[in-house]
């Protein structure tokens, strides 16, 4: 049953990697497919123009609430944070009742979620209500008594490698969502026992915004610093190579020690996904640069490219692929190895 909640499993199923559990008597629903498809279209449009997407998909009450509770924290010039958020947010759905349901757009990069109540009304699909939640509130974690930067910006704090930090955030958040949002149920954004420690929408949004701002700084560093141009160029070449029909062009861009299985797996993706990978993360670790690539069509798939400077030559690249759908397994494996 729970597996159905995870819309992101779609691609993993297709890739044959993560769809092992039988679903018993689950009945796929055309209404569910329509709602999720519409929510994904909203997400796609909001990644380009959030104001327009909200006006287009939201009921008047939804728009008023969004502007009152969320956008008071953002100026016109700041909408790019939301574009970043929505472009790499993964979709989960649950609590479907007839032609209505709940869709969560969770971004592990900003560790926050926007829960949408969505309804089919005639031929139109409309967003009728929403709730913004920080990852902390989503997972039921209390805010620390003493503030901690390392905890608030944990993905960027360097305490563990970014892929593992991402997997941990995602796995724990999904587990919390699944526990309170089964596939069928009353489409309630605040079911009993869920996000008990959550603050107001404004407070939750402010917490998410700290991560968004950190990402602005990260992007500003990556795209604005002349010293980072070789890494940006290397990412650009790799992105172009991913559009090719076969893996040869990509392998030519990667270091000799690159495991070819990773590249072959990436080339199992449709070109509409593979050809859309774009820079979404930039960081440094142990003297090496990490560039994360995400495709807006399937943001649950992440390519993390490790780049090492070489005097007089382009950086040496090693690519790994992360499927957020198997985050739980990755965390379990890491914890087992740590013991």
């Amino acid at each position: 049953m729970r597996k159905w909640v995870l819309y992101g499993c779609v691609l993993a199923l297709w890739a044959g990697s993560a769809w092992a559990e039988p679903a018993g008597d689950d009945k796929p629903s055309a209404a569910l497919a329509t709602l999720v498809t519409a929510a994904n279209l909203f997400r796609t449009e909001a990644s380009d123009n959030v104001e327009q997407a909200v006006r287009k998909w939201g009921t008047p009450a939804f728009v008023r609430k969004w502007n009152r509770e969320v956008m008071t924290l953002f100026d016109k010039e700041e909408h790019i944070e939301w574009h970043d958020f929505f472009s790499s947010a993964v979709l989960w759905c649950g609590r479907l009742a007839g032609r209505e349901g709940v869709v969560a757009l969770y971004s592990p990069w900003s560790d926050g979620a926007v829960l949408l109540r969505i309804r089919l009304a005639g031929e139109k699909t409309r967003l009728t209500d929403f709730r913004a939640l920080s990852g902390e509130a989503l997972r039921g974690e209390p805010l620390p008594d003493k503030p901690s930067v390392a905890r608030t910006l944990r993905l960027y704090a360097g305490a563990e490698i970014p892929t593992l930090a991402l997997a941990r955030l995602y796995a724990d958040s999904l587990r919390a969502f699944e526990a309170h949002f089964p596939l069928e149920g009353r489409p309630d954004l605040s079911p009993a026992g869920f996000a008990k420690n959550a603050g107001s929408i404004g407070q939750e949004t402010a917490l998410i915004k700290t991560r968004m701002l950190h990402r602005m700084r990260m992007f500003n560093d990556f795209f604005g610093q002349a010293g980072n141009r070789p890494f940006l160029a290397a990412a650009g070449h790799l992105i172009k190579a991913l559009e090719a029909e076969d893996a040869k062009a990509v392998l030519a861009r990667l270091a000799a020690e690159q495991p070819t299985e990773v590249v072959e797996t990436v080339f199992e993706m449709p070109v509409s996904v593979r050809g859309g990978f774009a820079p979404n993360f930039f960081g440094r670790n142990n003297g090496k640069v990490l560039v994360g690539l995400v495709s807006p069509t399937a943001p649950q798939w992440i390519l993390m490219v490790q780049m090492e400077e070489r005097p007089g030559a382009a950086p040496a690249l090693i690519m790994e692929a992360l499927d957020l759908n198997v985050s739980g397994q990755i965390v379990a494996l890491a914890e087992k190895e740590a013991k």
Partner: protein
Amino acid sequence: MKRVFLPSLLLVGFVWIAGGVERGWAADSPSGPAPSGGFLGRTRDAAVAVAEHDASGAAATGVEQLNEAFKIALEKGLTDAKYKELLGRAGKYAKVVDLALKAIKMGNLSNECRVALVNGNRDEFAKAFNNLVREGVKMGAGTAGAAKGAKVGALGIKGGLLVLITVPAGAIIGGLAAEKLAEKAYDELLAGSITELGELIFDTVKGPPPGSASEGEGEPGPPGVGLPHPDDGSETEGQRPEKLRRFR
């Protein structure tokens, strides 16, 4: 069979949407223009432009426009008083958000210092470093209490540069040393950038090491780079880089 029906349907829908959006299509949806590629489309275009054109001409303009948007959002977000209005001065949310914003701001300023150093721009470096120290003082005041912070902050002004060099990470400013929590947070968050900053100061003063990325990038400048006093922007004898060598 049932198990694969919905996911297959959704996959088709997913890819269909991706293709449809590119064509400006939006079935079963309210009317309105379709998006032009979204945020990731912009970062993708910028990276490819740099790769293919080395960011010259039109490509450079696109990258700069994107970067300008990041910069404006960052500056507005860090300086905006809306947080305080919304969150108030007390409460857990206010504290957590405030500390995170200060950390981001500090990291950004240290980055500005790094850029100025790499570019060999002494004036810019002096300005950026002055800001770094000022922010450290505020941080000390904010976390350790106004009176204590002011005292520790004063130490930070005088000793900030020396602490920066002698301690590789963490207590970059005197004010932070007084507040263990802030020290720990900065230690974990900013260790890398602060260490690099310290190294780059020396590289700039004494010249970059052979084979380093900054070698040949502009003039590193002769020893004797003047740093302004954080209070009034003037130079002080005790902050001249000759002092740095004693602590290497």
